[in-house]
């Protein structure tokens, strides 16, 4: 099955990449851009057929490795 994990910096954490992108967009003339935040995601190909089992498993991976709970939050999606 395929699953996706979204990882984002918590709102309280400064996002240097988002900031640099915002600035770059503004200088490019996109002055309608108020704010940009950058996140990442992981597309996983996982063995198994039970969506709930895969979700539990991937959530485990996300909490242990893929995201750093000190500064990031995550969300798991099972795609089928």
């Amino acid at each position: 099955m395929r699953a996706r994990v979204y990882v984002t910096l918590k709102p309280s954490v400064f996002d240097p990449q988002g900031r640099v992108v915002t600035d770059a967009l503004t200088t490019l003339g996109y002055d309608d851009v108020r704010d940009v935040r950058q996140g990442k995601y992981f597309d996983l190909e996982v063995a198994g057929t039970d969506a709930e089992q895969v979700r539990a498993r991937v959530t485990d991976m996300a909490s242990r490795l893929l995201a750093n709970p000190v500064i990031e939050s995550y969300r798991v999606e099972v795609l089928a």
Partner: protein
Amino acid sequence: MTVAVVVFPGSNSDVDAQHAVRVAGANATLVWHKDTDLGDAQAVILPGGFAHGDYLRTGAIARFSPIMNAVRDFADRGGPVLGICNGFQILLEAGLLPGAMVRNRDIKFVSRLVPVRVDQVDTPFTSACRQGQVLHLPIAHGEGNYTADADTMAALEANRQVIFRYVDADGQPCEAGNPNGSARNIAGICNATRNVVGLMPHPERACEAALGSADGLAVLSSLVHGLGVSSSR
């Protein structure tokens, strides 16, 4: 005395740390990350580099290395542990130090000699320094922008856990002296029991005048002399 320098896949300052410990007058042995014990080491260094390429997050994968259990036990028993640059990042991911790193303010890698002020001298790695002493140390990182939530930050300050701060030419921890956007100009911190220290600058690269600065020797000498055992070299 012997210092264990842990080698993770992608460490690149392991040999430099070993060399610097020897310059400071002690032994250093390289310990592979898959090993499970630290031997008779009296101190541990987690060196700089790009463990596992820093691909997921700096230090994120390295914290799971088998040796980290031994490092944690060692730290829990009060043993001195120093994380330099990537080593600091690993200590953060492992939860041995509070907070986290994000990308440098301008998202660029920054490599240069910077003034760093020693704010606390009651750690095994600063005992030979003077309070307020300014050391000139190289930094070389893309992700040295230290961050922590407000409570953590308050606790760090209250417990005098901020050990090193970036300063400007006049010794002030101001914006102009901050090379990476780090909160409160933090360059290095310790844990609550003060035996685990992490810093982004590289003292081990500044232990000989020929390299442009010998100020880093203060950090390594603190360790070597603090433990009261001197050279075999």
